């Protein structure tokens, strides 16, 4: 599936008013373009939360869509006609009186409930009822929404190799396995290419033929779509279980997959940085900002500060400038460790590079400024967008599940997950850790998986 950009904009209803979405845009992208910054509230302190990670990992954007709660705004492509509302907050997520809990935070520290009322059990029981009411999640699907989630088809599928994740590496691995003669099932949620679609550059040496990761992803996605022995499922890989290789949910289809070999191409997570106010709307992780700019076609903010611990932050600063965003500064604990040409390019654009770190983001309903500590004391920079760019962390949950199932035990072994890769489970791309593998590596890994699965050499049947 690729985003169709030739069709007309569509509209949906957000809390009673009509909002426009560009073709292929997600709810998250469309709402950001519309100026909606608060998408939900945190569970306990009711702090405002907004678009943060862009890929359904952070939990800061669940919306109720057509009566179904917990739909990630950043992942749900607008089809038109949806009725959308926010979930937490009273009377609304926009204005929540329980935000006062945040002011009482010193009294409500983590685990406060275990220290309250230990000597007065009846009071503890009463307090529990109050907490249940305030926490008031109450996110139950409407009867219609529940009926619409019920599976209408239960299928089984047997293939040689299943590839989980259709980012750049997953695509390359699927093509490698197919080239070895394997039948391949590629499971990916959303548009093939994943985060690569938001990368207008490329990590050095990953591939030579393509101009950028985005171009590479589009080319490989086209190859995959055209390949006769690769089936692409737009859905969620739920889990691997004892005795069941993989369960996939694709809209109303439940598919039980049997595959001798699995390629884990689940990618990686952006890692947040710890500073006061790092959860405020407007503080975004690197991939989210790139997705807003390059996939959603939305200007992510008006004035940005980029907080970075790697070269990516400098690239993003450049991309922000090109998107018409004012960049107040790039803040880096160690600018001297970054490639000189990147630093020089920002210099030429008159973007100051500050050696330092963020201390606090200010703003009641979202970022308005960021306080930075550096060599010459602290300074306050105006910004409605604070980009955090750091080395990523592998998305290794599925890899571990496979390990436990293969080992028949959940007693965790020590060490990096790649060290436990077996022939039946091959980890590729950033899921295997940084630096990212080359596309040739991923393709070879796909071939290995095909051989481990005992795939017959390709033959052409009439």
């Amino acid at each position, binding site marked *: 599936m690729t985003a169709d950009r030739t069709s007309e904009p569509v509209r949906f209803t957000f809390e009673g008013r009509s909002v426009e979405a560009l073709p292929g845009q997600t709810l998250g992208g469309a709402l950001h373009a519309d100026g909606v910054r608060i998408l939900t509230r945190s569970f306990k302190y009711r702090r405002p939360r907004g678009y943060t990670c862009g890929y359904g990992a952070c939990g800061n954007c669940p919306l109720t869509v057509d009566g179904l709660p917990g739909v990630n705004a950043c992942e749900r492509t607008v089809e038109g006609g949806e009725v959308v509302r926010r979930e937490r907050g009273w009377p609304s997520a926009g204005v929540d009186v329980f935000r006062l809990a945040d002011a009482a935070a010193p009294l409500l520290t983590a685990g406060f409930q*275990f220290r309250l009322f230990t000597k007065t*059990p009846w009071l503890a*029981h009463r307090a*529990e009822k109050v907490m249940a009411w305030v926490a008031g*999640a109450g996110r139950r699907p409407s009867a219609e929404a529940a009926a*619409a989630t019920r599976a209408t088809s239960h299928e089984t599928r047997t293939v040689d190799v299943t590839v989980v994740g259709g980012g750049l590496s997953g695509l390359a691995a699927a093509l490698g396995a197919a080239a070895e003669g394997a039948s391949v099932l590629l499971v990916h949620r959303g548009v093939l290419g994943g985060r690569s679609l938001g990368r207008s550059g490329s990590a050095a040496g990953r591939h030579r033929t393509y101009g950028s990761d985005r171009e590479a992803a589009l080319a490989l996605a086209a190859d995959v779509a055209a390949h006769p022995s690769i089936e692409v499922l737009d859905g969620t890989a739920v889990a691997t279980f004892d*005795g069941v290789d993989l369960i996939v949910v694709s809209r109303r289809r439940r598919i039980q997959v049997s595959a001798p070999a699995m390629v884990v191409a689940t990618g990686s997570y952006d890692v947040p940085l710890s500073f006061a106010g790092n959860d405020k709307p407007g503080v975004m992780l690197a991939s989210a900002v790139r997705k807003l700019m390059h996939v959603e076609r939305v200007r992510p903010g008006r004035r940005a500060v980029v907080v970075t611990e790697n070269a990516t932050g400098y690239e993003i600063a450049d991309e922000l400038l090109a998107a018409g965003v004012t960049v107040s500064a790039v803040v880096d604990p160690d600018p001297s460790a970054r490639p000189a040409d990147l630093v020089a390019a920002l210099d030429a654009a008159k973007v100051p590079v500050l050696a330092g770190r963020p201390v606090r983001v200010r703003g009641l309903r979202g970022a308005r400024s960021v306080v930075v500590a550096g060599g010459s004391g602290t300074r306050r920079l105006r910004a409605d967008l604070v980009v955090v760019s750091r080395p990523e962390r592998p998305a290794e949950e599925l890899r571990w599940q496979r390990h436990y199932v293969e080992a*028949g035990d*959940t007693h965790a072994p020590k060490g990096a997950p790649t060290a436990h890769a077996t022939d039946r489970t091959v980890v590729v791309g950033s899921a295997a850790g940084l630096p990212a593998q080359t596309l040739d590596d991923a393709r070879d890994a796909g071939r290995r998986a095909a051989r481990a699965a005992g795939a017959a050499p390709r033959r052409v049947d009439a």
Partner: protein
Amino acid sequence: MSAPGVRAGDPGASYDVVVIGAGVQGLSTAYELAKRGVKRIAVLDRSWPGGGASGRNGELIRSIFSSPEWVGLFDLSLRRWHDLSAELEMNVLFSPSGYLVLASTDDQWANCERDHAYHLSEGVDSELLSQADVLKLVPALNRDVVRGGVLQPSGGFAHHDAVNWAYLKAGARRGVEVYCDVTVTGLTTSAGRVTGVRTSRGPIAAGLVLNAAGGHALDVNAWAGITLPMVTSRLEMLVTEPLAPFLRQGLAALALLGYCHQTARGEFVGGTEMHHVDESRSQNSTWDLLADMATKWVTLFPQLSGARLLRHWAGTVTQAADLAPVIGSVPDVDGYLMSCGWVYGFMGAPGASTLLAEEIVTGVPSPILEPFSPRRLVEGRLIAESSLVVPTGEEHP
């Protein structure tokens, strides 16, 4: 792995009591021993405190069983639950919001009537509820599966992690030494007497060794040369994302082989079982049981349809054919006690640990624990308890 109350470094060379397993049985017994003045106690665990079934159970608490043996032990335990937060100086989030045993068939209803009469005769807190009473108490239930039930208003549930932490910390305050990442690999014996344990960090001498190893208890018994008719089996549960409150009580549904409750925060927590015992040592969850749980819980509470799952987990227990705990010593093996075979171990721990510690310190056998002695398995005397929701290997009606 560090947790409050867990010691860094290596255990010492010798203790009065070595407890194998830092689950709720081991931690509570160690605490009760320390409370009674036992000085040198070590609890050893191969992973982390509560990492096995003690952190993977349904958190439910009741004493409305059908047999004098079960009622005797679990009613004492229920009374302990009501004072536990105050005694351990930590709110374990014990929620005495009631425990409902739900009957769906006429046969189950007849059992409820009989059990209720027995509860009254024993002075156990119990109420008999008609179909209308049950539906009034829990309107969210599907009336088609409600025939009636027995309610214990003083029963309920607690937060299992909090209970493990509370025992851990209360024990540590009294000098109990808990060591994690220490794997016991064998027992040392001398002239028919267990004299200590062999571990991944060297041998440790012990005046008394307590097997509280949960799903690994059979290994430890085997090192002591003890073979009892018990198996290791796997149980599974699921947790949904938080939902608006619809279930205040703990609930056991006999017809579904299921048990569930809803946390204060709104998560629905429930486990079901199939008609066969899943003999496995794996803590990996299975698709078949996930499907079984989802189907049954949506049947019982139609409004759960469409709810999203937050977690799904599996844990292991060691069980005898009567599903009753196996507590005490075996003939001809001195210096060795067991507190294993627990399937209802979370709710039973506060009571059993109190009695076991008392027995160890005074040397006087507890009449409440006596029926649960390992001897019963050797002699083939099983406890008949009919209000359990776990499969006994036979098809339920």
